[in-house]
C-alpha cells in the first residue's frame, strides 16, 4: 500500500487537471465526429469519467472525501442515463431502423 502511494507523490495537481481536460475533450470530439448514437453515448460516458477522475484528484488533493462521494452520484446518473438512453435508442431504432443521428432531421427550421 505504501508503495502505491509513493507513485503519485509529486504529480502536480495541474497535470491531473490537464489530463482530465484532455479526456473530456476527447469525449467531446467523439460526440462531434461520430454519427452512431451509441458511440456518441460512449463518448459522453468518457466525459463523465474524466469528471469523476477530476473530482477524485481534487478530493485526494484536499483530503476531503466529499469529492469521492460525489463520484457515486455521477455514476448513478451515468447508469440512469445509459439505461434511458439505450431505451430511447431501441425505441427509435424500432421506428427508423437506424441509429444515425443525421437521420434525425425531421424537426428543423
Amino acid at each position, binding site marked *: *500500500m505504501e508503495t502505491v502511494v509513493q*507513485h*503519485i*507523490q*509529486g*504529480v*502536480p*495537481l*495541474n497535470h491531473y*487537471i*490537464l*489530463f482530465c*481536460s*484532455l*479526456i*473530456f*475533450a*476527447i*469525449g*467531446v*470530439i467523439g460526440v*462531434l*465526429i*461520430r454519427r452512431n448514437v*451509441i*458511440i456518441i*453515448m*460512449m*463518448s459522453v*460516458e*468518457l466525459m463523465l*469519467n474524466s469528471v*469523476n477522475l477530476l473530482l*477524485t484528484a481534487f*478530493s*485526494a*488533493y484536499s*483530503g*476531503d*472525501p*466529499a469529492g*469521492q462521494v460525489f*463520484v*457515486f*452520484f455521477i*455514476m*448513478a446518473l*451515468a*447508469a*440512469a442515463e*445509459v*439505461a*434511458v438512453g*439505450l*431505451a*430511447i*435508442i*431501441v*425505441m427509435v431504432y424500432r421506428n427508423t431502423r437506424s*441509429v444515425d443521428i443525421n437521420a434525425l432531421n425531421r424537426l428543423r427550421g
Partner: protein
Amino acid sequence: MSVFYFVAFLSIFFALMTIFTKNPVHSVLYLVITFFTFTVHYILLNAQFLAVVNFIVYMGAIMVLFLFVLMLLNLNKDTEPLKSNLVKVMGVIAGLCLLLTLAGSLRVLEVSDPVTLKNPDIGLVGNLGKVLFSEFLLPFEISSILLLTAMVGAVLLAKNDPKKA
C-alpha cells in the same frame, strides 16, 4: 510518479482509439480498456473503493449494456456511414479549441504544488460510507428516485407494445 504519466498516456491513447475506430464493437472494447486505466488511476489516488466500483459498474454493467444493445440492433459490423471528413476535421478542431481554452482558463501550465495525500485512507470504504450516510444522506436517498425514474422510463420506452396504440 512516472507510473501516472504512463497510465495517463494509455488512457488517452485508448480513448482516442475509442472514438476513431470504425467498428462500434471495437470502440466499446477500447472504451473498456480506457475505463480500466481509469481504475488504475483511482488506485494510484488511493481511492480503492471508487476503483472497485468503477471496475464493476462501468466495465461491468454499463459496457455490457452497450455491447448488448449493439448486438441486439446487430450493429456489430462497421455499418456506420461515416461523417464527411470536413465535418470530422471541424469536429476535431472544435474539440481542440475547447481543450485549449479549457486548459488556458485553468492555467494548467503554471506550476502547482503536487498532490500529496493528506490522509491516505479517505478512499477507504469506511470513511466514504460515513460521509455518504451522514452528510450526503439526502442526495443518496434522492438518487434512488433518479434510478427509479430511469427504470420506469427504460421499461416504458423499450418495451414493445403488443397492441398498436
